[in-house]
């Protein structure tokens, strides 16, 4: 039993699986982005090379930094993501869940953002602090909409707050994305993900050329490697979450495998296209957008879900 838990946590579908898949899909992202800019893009295993290289580098802890927070933040964030990926993966691949897991995941994603904020502000660097501040505001912006859309599958699955139940309902009666409320929630969900992963147009905290990579500016070596890995793991976690909540999860019989891969790649591709065709927006525009438009729309989705549409 313990062995299985460890296996799930560290190998499949947790740390190892998510990490590797994330790095691969990260390559996909870079390659596609390069094609958008008429370039060739990096080779397939680029992200692995980057990751292992960073592991071997020196870690510089800045004098001004709060040492413990500085070190713990990326590792804790990594642990949080591993946990999320395990929970989501278990639901997706083994149809296993536990009561309230959806709420746990919700809290964990929030914890991750908090880790970024802590890590950024721990460095004592102005630019990092600006980045951390922006991350905080972005969290404020997208969190409400994110929580609201989580309600939709819960309502639609008959007030089940378990992933396995949500999947079961969808497999029985078709994915939620087929319904009006489902599609609304899915679209808002995509936007929230874009913000949570700080991809364009919401890459405000990491604005590379402006504030020199934001919260992660002062990180180097293994700690930076973990931040990068975290980033790529999110490329797995969030699309999986969307598939799980709205798109009926994965089936692993026959054509189902292909279909599963397709679903995943489709979501990621859409994310990358959004990322490459949009300029950066301002933080208050983002706040405005989420509070004024996204959240109310998400709320309409919830009402529709209650009405059963």
């Amino acid at each position: 039993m313990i062995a299985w838990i460890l296996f799930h946590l560290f190998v499949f579908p947790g740390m190892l699986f998510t990490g590797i898949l994330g790095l691969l899909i990260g390559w996909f992202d870079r390659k596609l982005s390069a094609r958008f800019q008429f370039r060739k893009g990096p080779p397939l295993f680029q992200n692995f090379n980057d990751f292992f290289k960073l592991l071997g580098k020196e870690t510089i802890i800045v004098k001004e930094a709060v040492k413990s927070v500085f070190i713990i933040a990326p590792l804790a964030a990594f642990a949080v993501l591993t946990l999320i990926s395990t929970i989501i993966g278990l639901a997706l691949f083994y149809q296993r869940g536990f009561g309230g897991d959806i709420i746990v995941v919700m809290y964990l994603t929030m914890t991750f953002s908090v880790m970024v904020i802590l890590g950024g502000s721990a460095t004592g660097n102005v630019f990092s602090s600006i980045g951390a501040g922006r991350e905080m505001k972005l969290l404020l912006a997208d969190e409400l909409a994110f929580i609201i859309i989580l309600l939709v599958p819960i309502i639609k699955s008959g007030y089940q707050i378990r992933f396995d139940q949500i999947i079961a309902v969808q497999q029985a009666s078709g994915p939620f994305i087929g319904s009006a409320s489902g599609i609304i929630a899915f679209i808002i969900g995509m936007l929230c993900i874009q913000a949570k992963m700080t991809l364009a147009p919401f890459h405000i905290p990491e604005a590379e050329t402006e504030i020199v990579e934001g919260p992660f500016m002062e990180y180097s070596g293994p700690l930076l490697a973990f931040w990068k890995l975290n980033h790529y793991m999110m490329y797995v976690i969030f699309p999986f979450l969307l598939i799980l909540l709205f798109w009926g999860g994965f089936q692993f019989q026959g054509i189902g495998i292909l279909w599963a891969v397709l679903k995943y790649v489709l979501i990621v591709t859409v994310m990358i296209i959004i990322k490459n065709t949009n300029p950066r927006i301002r933080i208050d525009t983002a706040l405005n957008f989420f509070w004024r438009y996204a959240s109310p729309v998400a709320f309409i989705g919830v009402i529709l879900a209650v009405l059963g549409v």
Partner: protein
Amino acid sequence: MGWYNKRLAKSLWVFHVSGSPCNNCDIEILDLLTPRYDIERLGIKLVGSVRHADVLLVTGVFNKKIAPKIKKIYEQAPKPIFVVAIGTCVSGGCCFKDSYNMVEKREEFIPIDMYVPGCPPKPEAMIEAVAKLVGVLNG
């Protein structure tokens, strides 16, 4: 360290340090990133923070005002770090070596691993330098 070096060779992140150059080397470095030469193919990426760098591209004859800053930059970089000197300026002082405002030994401020001569070196020459560096790392 062979395995690690191979990883390193495939993932060189560069940071650009300019110490009183004439800009031309810098422009040619930027040219490397444009679609025409696209060094991301080789895993090379221009990063914005010196903390993320594996390679420092140094240009220019350091004048006395900027040299201490360059030393500081080097200290901020995580080791192992490679320093590639782009242009004749860094390697030989070019035509500025007689000036009163130049530091005499640039190596005192930043240990240089590789020189790419040329004024400015062609982008192809810089790519070759990278290839050499990769070759060294691969053993």
